[in-house]
């Protein structure tokens, strides 16, 4: 188990990258803690697979270093990095039994047969595979095969990190939950560093301690699920996490006030006179309320027309329109809401300011 340090690392598939667009992965400098559970989250093409391949050693980054526990492994090949990986589709050795599959990595490393036997038995016990040890691996279901792939990583006690590349893609929906809790349980038990690639936010948020959100070849935020929800560091995070995503509204900001399409709202902090770049205000639909109806009903109100209401059972989502701005508002169950004129109240503490898509920290 080891700390993973990505030091000034960048990667381009082109031989002579010049402009930032040439990079599949823009310069990163991050330390991932030992024993952490990290989820790499982002849409397809954001560079998460590239990053995973660099960590596993299938790709050598064009710039910078990868350190495992302080040791530079940038140029070390996969076999010598002591990592394990579970792939999108189950990779098992068809002709072997479950036992032989689990023993394979140890056998390749020249471990004594008696030790292999003991270790395999131990891991099989933990993964509930003991009963099936002598079955042919090819006949098992997809989730059992994924468990075996994981087991091939776990049997080695020198593993620095276990990488998961969208491991639940081919698993039946009702088995996903079982497999995910099993993974979590094993993580707590073993304490290995875990990197989990996914494009599914629920999977990432329920699974990881820290979620690494990627966008356009960049890590835009690393944070706990709460942090991602409450203080997205980038408008992309706000928009990508949560359903519906954060409202991002073009605005002008001066001190503790922001003006959005002619309406003025209060902010929780003092931003001074903010100028330059694209200024936006972000607020989650969860933190908006329909205030007292009527024009100029009070401070912080924002006149809108509710154009549609969608009932999702536990809550409703109202679409409010002001000029050419569209705002999603989450309305709790049992709160009446109907189409027509209304006024919105912003929660000042939850109203965030973005300059060129990045979060601006204000003074209290």
């Amino acid at each position: 188990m080891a700390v993973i340090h990505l030091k000034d690392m960048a990667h381009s598939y082109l031989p002579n990258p010049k402009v930032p667009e040439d990079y599949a992965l823009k310069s990163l400098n991050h330390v991932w803690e030992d024993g952490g559970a990290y989820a790499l989250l982002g849409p397809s093409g954001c560079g998460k697979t590239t990053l995973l391949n660099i960590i596993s050693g299938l790709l050598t980054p064009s710039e910078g270093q990868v350190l495992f526990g302080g040791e530079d492994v940038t140029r070390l090949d996969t076999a010598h990095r002591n990592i394990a990986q579970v792939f999108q589709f189950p990779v098992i050795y068809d002709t072997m039994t479950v036992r032989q599959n689990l023993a394979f990595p140890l056998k390749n490393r020249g471990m004594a047969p008696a030790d292999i036997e003991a270790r395999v038995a131990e891991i099989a016990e933990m993964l509930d595979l003991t009963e099936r040890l002598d079955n042919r691996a090819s006949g098992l279901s997809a989730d059992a095969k994924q468990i075996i792939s994981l087991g091939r990583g776990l049997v080695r006690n020198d593993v620095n990190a276990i990488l998961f590349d969208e491991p639940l893609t081919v698993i039946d929906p009702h088995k996903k939950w079982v497999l995910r809790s099993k993974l979590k349980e094993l993580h707590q038990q073993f304490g290995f560093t875990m990197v989990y690639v996914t494009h599914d936010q629920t999977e990432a948020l329920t699974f990881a301690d820290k979620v690494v959100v990627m966008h356009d070849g960049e890590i835009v935020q690393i944070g706990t699920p709460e942090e991602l929800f409450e203080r997205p560091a980038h408008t992309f995070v706000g928009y990508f996490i949560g359903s519906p995503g954060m409202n991002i509204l073009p605005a002008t900001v001066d001190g503790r006030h922001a003006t959005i399409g002619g309406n003025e709202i209060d902010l929780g902090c003092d931003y001074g006179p903010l100028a330059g770049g694209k200024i936006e205000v972000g607020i989650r639909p969860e933190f908006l309320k329909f205030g007292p109806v009527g024009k100029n009903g009070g401070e912080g109100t924002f006149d809108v027309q509710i154009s549609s209401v969608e009932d999702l059972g536990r809550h409703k989502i109202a679409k409010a329109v002001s000029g050419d701005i569209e705002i999603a508002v989450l309305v709790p169950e049992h709160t009446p809401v109907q189409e027509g004129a209304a006024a919105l109240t912003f929660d000042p503490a939850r109203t965030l300011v973005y300059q060129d898509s990045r979060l601006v920290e204000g003074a209290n």
Partner: protein
Amino acid sequence: MQRKLNQKAWFLVLPVFLLVAFSAVLPLMTVVNYSVQDTFGNNEFYWVGTEWFVEILNSERFHSALGRQLLFSGIILAIEIPLGILIALSMPKKGWGASICLVLMALPLLIPWNVVGTIWQIFAREDIGLLGHTLAAMGIDYNYTHSPTAAWITIIIMDVWHWTSLVVLLCYAGLCSIPDAFYQAAKIDGASRWAVFRYIQFPKMNRVLLIAVLLRFMDSFMIYTEPFVLTGGGPGNSTTFLSIDLVKMAIGQFDLGPAAAFSLVYFLIVLLLSWVFYTVMTARDGEAN
């Protein structure tokens, strides 16, 4: 795939059934007819029962042709299968290199069989051939029209030249169906090159390799045109394989009865082999589903 029971499907199969019945069953019945009769010309036939079969099965001529045939097919398989696997393993997997390899390697498969014989005749002759001339210049005594050993070697090299590509293409198709993740997983598991072959590539090639072995076995078992053009079955009878012998008997000597009995025995041997082939194939299909 689960298939529906539908007897009307017979209508879809009917054209094939009639066509193949016409071009296979009718001729086979003629053969059976001849195999149990004798003739002295003038279309007069006499019932002789199993006499021809007994004669063929006991004839030195048939035994030696069968022996040569089995030896030849055995040597062909022993060379072409491992060589084909080796070449397929070392071929580029994608890009223009792969396309060029595929096109050039497939080329010998599309040359008419007699032209294959002609090409090797021209290539191996001592007086005008590149190979024959070079060997002679090196002081090696090589003349495939006089020495049975040289004739055998030439025919075997010719067959390797002609058909190894089939094995290569089959194995290549098998290899291409292996997802990259398997190779990555093997790297992570610290597998050696041999282990990758033994546990990933070989199992995936298993199926196509079986097709390759059996196709090559059958086709080499029926080989006629190439050795016929190259050596005419000689020198002596040293390269007279089953098909060459049969055609000699049927067309050359017009021994209808023995030739027909020969045909049936020959066909039954092949049929038995293709039954084994088919059984193993479908057993595998069942296992895969």
